[in-house]
């Protein structure tokens, strides 16, 4: 640790990190565009200028993101000279900026807006027309570039160089005609493109799926965890009008995902907004579904379990640890071994984040004592069973609706899932909340716990899985007592 002085206060700073980090750690507000803690600093935008005095040399203006911390530095971020340097820098950045904030999707979380406000660059002096460039340039399926809004900070360029290690973007052209582009206009590829829209400090790179969808200040942000693979990236779930998940964004987590997340996880929100959700419960008899309320469904489940005491119980790797605990007690009450369905795998595995194991909580549930069953084992066990209880989000999806439809008509299925199952075998489906509608904990592949948050209300007539299981267990308890006596 090195001792430096920031705004008259003597503080300890990490000599391995640039000066801007020390400033931010000690509550000195230094703006930044090109600097990003996850990327190599280049010092190209010059917005982070501060006044620095070292030894006998008179104070001078330096860029905080490219200056290493050294013993005895005296840094001042608030002197008139420092403010003026930043204000001038902003004036140049705004010289060619279209200022279409009312239309721009970044408005409200835009660094250019924020710093223009804080550094007081309210009016420009230039009289020349602004440059005209392409405003809707598709860089592949995920990202749309607005060349006029770009301030050429090169964060996106460095993201592909430093993080995914597959450079795809570059700054081409000279002077005021410089633009961000791909080689020969080839579309961007890879599973991490979405991140460049997050790190773009202005509204130049936008997600094609989120463009013009919502104003960011109307989105309620809930800290949560991605459930699309066993990495369990920390994310924010952003909900419009308490109804619709509009986007998922990574949230900084040193141990798990740093600042990033993959596109597979980022664009999984369509599932969270699915319209055709199971409300209450459904009784399928003779192939005809009868929608009923949850209480009737629970009563039907209790009746079935009284008749078939040796039911085959299988839970989904999307269950939280808290739900797992309740499921464990449920298995115990029915004297069944606790079984977990193995998560599906996909070919997205890479060195950065995605683990290729497309479910969030296998490790947590195995730690609680569940035995993992492969899908084939589970299906052959189901074929032999008289009655089966399938518990948890997406369990029918992993087993496969076709495979379940092939089961003989004599089997009795009890299903807790977000969607009703349409098969000919007699079954009861009880609706449960999805990952954006409940709270709980998932344990990721390395043992880190990730909280999931209820970001929107569950459909009407749906109660938590824990509550449904508890009610069934309570209703069965006296019968178990009679059998025992």
């Amino acid at each position: 640790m090195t001792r430096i002085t920031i705004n008259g206060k003597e503080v300890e700073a990490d000599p391995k990190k640039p000066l801007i980090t020390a400033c931010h750690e000690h509550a000195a507000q230094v703006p930044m565009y090109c600097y990003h803690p996850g990327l190599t600093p280049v010092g190209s935008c010059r917005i982070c200028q501060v006044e620095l005095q070292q030894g006998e040399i008179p104070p001078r203006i330096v860029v905080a993101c490219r200056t290493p911390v050294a013993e005895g530095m005296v840094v001042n971020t608030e002197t008139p000279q420092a403010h003026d340097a930043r204000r001038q820098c902003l004036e140049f950045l705004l010289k060619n900026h279209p200022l279409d904030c009312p239309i721009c999707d970044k408005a409200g979380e835009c660094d250019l807006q924020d710093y223009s406000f804080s550094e007081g660059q309210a009016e420009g002096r230039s009289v020349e027309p602004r440059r005209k460039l392409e405003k809707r340039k598709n860089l592949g399926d995920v990202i749309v570039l607005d060349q006029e809004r770009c301030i050429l900070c090169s964060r996106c360029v460095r993201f592909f160089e430093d993080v995914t290690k597959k450079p795809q973007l570059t700054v081409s052209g000279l002077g005021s005609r410089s633009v961000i582009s791909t080689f020969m206009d080839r579309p961007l590829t890879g599973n991490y493109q979405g991140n460049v829209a997050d790190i773009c400090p202005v509204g130049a790179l936008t997600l094609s799926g989120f463009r013009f969808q919502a104003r960011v200040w109307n989105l309620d942000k809930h800290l949560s965890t991605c459930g699309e693979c066993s990495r369990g990236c920390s994310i924010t779930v952003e909900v419009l009008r308490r109804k619709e998940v509009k986007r998922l964004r990574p949230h900084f987590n040193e141990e798990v995902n740093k600042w990033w997340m993959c596109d597979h996880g980022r664009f999984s929100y369509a599932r969270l907004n699915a319209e055709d959700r199971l409300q209450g419960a459904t009784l399928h008899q003779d192939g005809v579904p009868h929608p009923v309320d949850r209480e009737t469904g629970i009563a039907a489940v209790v009746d079935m379990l009284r008749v078939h005491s040796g039911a085959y119980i299988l839970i989904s790797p999307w269950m939280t640890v808290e739900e797992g605990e309740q499921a464990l007690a449920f298995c115990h009450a029915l004297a069944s071994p606790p079984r977990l369905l193995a998560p599906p795998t996909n070919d997205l595995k890479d060195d950065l984040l995605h683990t290729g194991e497309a479910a969030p909580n296998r490790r947590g549930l195995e730690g609680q004592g569940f035995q993992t069953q492969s899908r084939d084992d589970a299906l052959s066990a189901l074929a032999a069973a008289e009655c089966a209880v399938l518990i948890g989000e997406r369990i029918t999806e992993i087993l496969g609706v076709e495979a379940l439809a092939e089961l003989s008509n004599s089997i009795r299925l009890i299903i807790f899932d977000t969607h009703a199952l349409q098969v000919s075998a007699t079954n009861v489906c009880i609706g449960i909340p999805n990952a954006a509608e409940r709270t709980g904990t998932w344990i990721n592949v390395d043992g880190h716990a990730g909280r999931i948050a209820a970001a929107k209300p569950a459909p009407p007539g749906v109660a938590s899985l824990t509550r449904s299981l508890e009610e069934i267990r309570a209703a069965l308890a006296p019968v178990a007592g009679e059998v025992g006596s």
Partner: protein
Amino acid sequence: MVIIKRKELSFIEKLYLPQIFQALSHSFRAMFQPRITRQYPEEPLPTNEVTRGQPRLTLLEDGEHLACVSCGLCEAACPAYAITIDGHETERFIEREPERFEIDMLRCILCGFCEEACPKDAIFMSDELELADFSRAALVYDIDKLKRPREELQGRIDYFYQVNDRWRTPSSTS
């Protein structure tokens, strides 16, 4: 305790007739004096550009598209939460326009904050003041009920810039 005895009325007083004739004479006299009340609704209220009636959306010169770009600033400024906007992408130069723009006129308190917040000259207070219908839903106005040619609101627009030109200049609406 004080006991108040009611005053006994005399015979003339019990007839009430003198009072009735006195009142009628007032009425007859008033018939021939100039009227001081307004015959609403046959005779509507006079309004001018200072009247802050219900907010209305202006159309661009093409008479087809709204000037609104669905930025949501009026929605954010509205203290009564009367405005709901959903935007979508357009093919035009102006990249976004409202897909849904609703003002719940029962909630609107005619404060004019939306007019002040708008960066695009797209919402102005009109001189329309009347509000009556048989259902609440019918009083949630959508784009079709809100849009007006700019000329209809021109008086208000000019007045608006006259009082606010200390801090803003007309933006281009093209």
